[in-house]
């Protein structure tokens, strides 16, 4: 949610972004992608700014991506993660936020296991807050980088048919992508057993099916979500083996497909579960491309929120 609050702006969710804001960020990310191809991969745009990565949930990829993005813009980065901080000693989120503000930082990137935590932080800090994933709510920069990747590879977004397969219920990536894809005019089909589909999700403008094969012949983009073993214990499906049987991108399914859709995954992939290992090898370049796009996109976001004055 990029809301203007006085002079301050945040990126909290995709759901509250306008279509043209999304497109502007994607366009801007293109310019930043070029910076990462130089021998000197650094521009002075955010020199003297300090960005805090407040990661209260384990994450290597997203944290690294934000850190690289900030550093390539010459910002100083402080990493603050729950395992090394006072959060594990029971300090409240509010007190942590107030402490960070007292140190005088220019932006806070928040990853938190609780939905809504970044939005709450906006009440306690006076600098932009960027949501790096909150509970099952949203992961806006992931959706933006996915859109960027799709547009680079397929040349368009509007009218594209995107199937998202897997644990929709627990996925903030799915929620952000649904909002983002719908806003730019793509069609979205969710593929999962009903036990992994959250209540009333059709109201977000998507279709739902339980049959993967129905989606495979239809989609231009096949977005696979990471499936987690603990869902078996929650009786969301009987076993990983059965999940793979019904919803995995197996070799048999993949080699039958013609033409083949663009396969995407937020990573890390569970080879042998949602995707066969050999299929994963074939489509790996797209997925590593998503990672590279992540840095450029996050540079665009940081520059958009921090570059330029507060007035």
């Amino acid at each position: 949610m990029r809301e203007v609050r006085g002079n301050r702006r945040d990126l909290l969710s995709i759901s509250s972004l306008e279509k043209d804001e999304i497109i502007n960020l994607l366009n801007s990310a293109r310019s930043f992608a070029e910076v990462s191809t130089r021998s000197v991969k650094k521009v002075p745009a955010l020199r003297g700014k300090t960005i805090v990565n407040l990661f209260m949930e384990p994450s290597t990829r997203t944290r690294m991506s934000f850190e690289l993005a900030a550093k390539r813009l010459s910002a100083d980065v402080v990493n603050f993660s729950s395992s090394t901080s006072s959060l594990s000693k029971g300090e409240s989120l509010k007190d942590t936020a107030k402490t960070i503000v007292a140190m005088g930082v220019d932006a806070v990137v928040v990853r938190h296991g609780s939905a809504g935590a970044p939005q709450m932080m906006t009440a306690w800090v006076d600098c932009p807050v960027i949501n790096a994933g909150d509970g099952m709510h949203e992961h806006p920069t992931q959706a933006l980088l996915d859109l960027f990747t799709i547009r680079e590879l397929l040349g368009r977004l509007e009218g594209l048919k995107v199937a998202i397969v897997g644990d929709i219920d627990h996925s903030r990536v799915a929620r952000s992508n649904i909002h983002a894809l719908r806003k730019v005019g793509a069609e979205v089909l969710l593929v999962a057993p009903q036990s992994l589909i959250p209540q009333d999700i059709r109201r977000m403008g998507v279709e739902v099916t339980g049959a993967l094969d129905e989606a495979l012949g239809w989609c231009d983009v096949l977005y696979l979500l990471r499936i987690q073993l603990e869902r078996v214990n929650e009786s969301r499906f009987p076993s990983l083996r059965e999940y793979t049987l019904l919803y995995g991108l197996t070799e048999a399914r993949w080699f039958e497909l013609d033409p083949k859709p663009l396969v995407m995954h937020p990573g890390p992939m569970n080879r042998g579960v949602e995707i066969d290992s050999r299929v994963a090898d074939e489509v790996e370049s797209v997925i590593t491309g998503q990672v590279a796009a992540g840095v450029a996109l996050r540079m665009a976001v940081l520059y958009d929120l921090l570059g330029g004055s507060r007035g």
Partner: protein
Amino acid sequence: MVFEARAQLLDADDIARIIRRVSHEILERNKGWDDLALVGVRTRGVFLARRLARTIEEIEGGSVYVGELDVSLYRDDVAIRRASKVGVTQIDFDVNDKKVVIVDDVLFTGRTTRAAMDALMDFGRPAVVQLAVLIDRGHREVPIRADYVGKNLPTSGNEKVKVSLTEIDGTDMVEVGEELER
């Protein structure tokens, strides 16, 4: 803010003559086109660089490297103005040991040129860096001087110089005037 023109300073013919003259000057100073690269500063500097390159190639044959620089990320005033849209920087050649001419439309405070030099240096170590501008309107705030000047134009600080080029504005001309609050 709207621009209100008070006078037209250059017309299309004037600009064409300047391009031809500056092309000759660049060739003369650098003793030919060998290792010569023209890097335009977005947006209008890019079109001027392309015109100079084309003219140089017409005069001497051969080919000149052309690049595009977006200096938004190198500006020293990001803290005091709204973030501008970032354009693409495209330098598809090795700048090491090249004779690079930075091309811009108007030289004013010199800060954009400073940013352009910083950006350029991130791509390598040119043998020499020179500066070509269509208009030099004075009021420098940093010690920068153009090597090639289309026209010197003394202005007051609150005057504005507006450069129009066919490629983007549909016509070639330079006007002076004022920016008025609406």
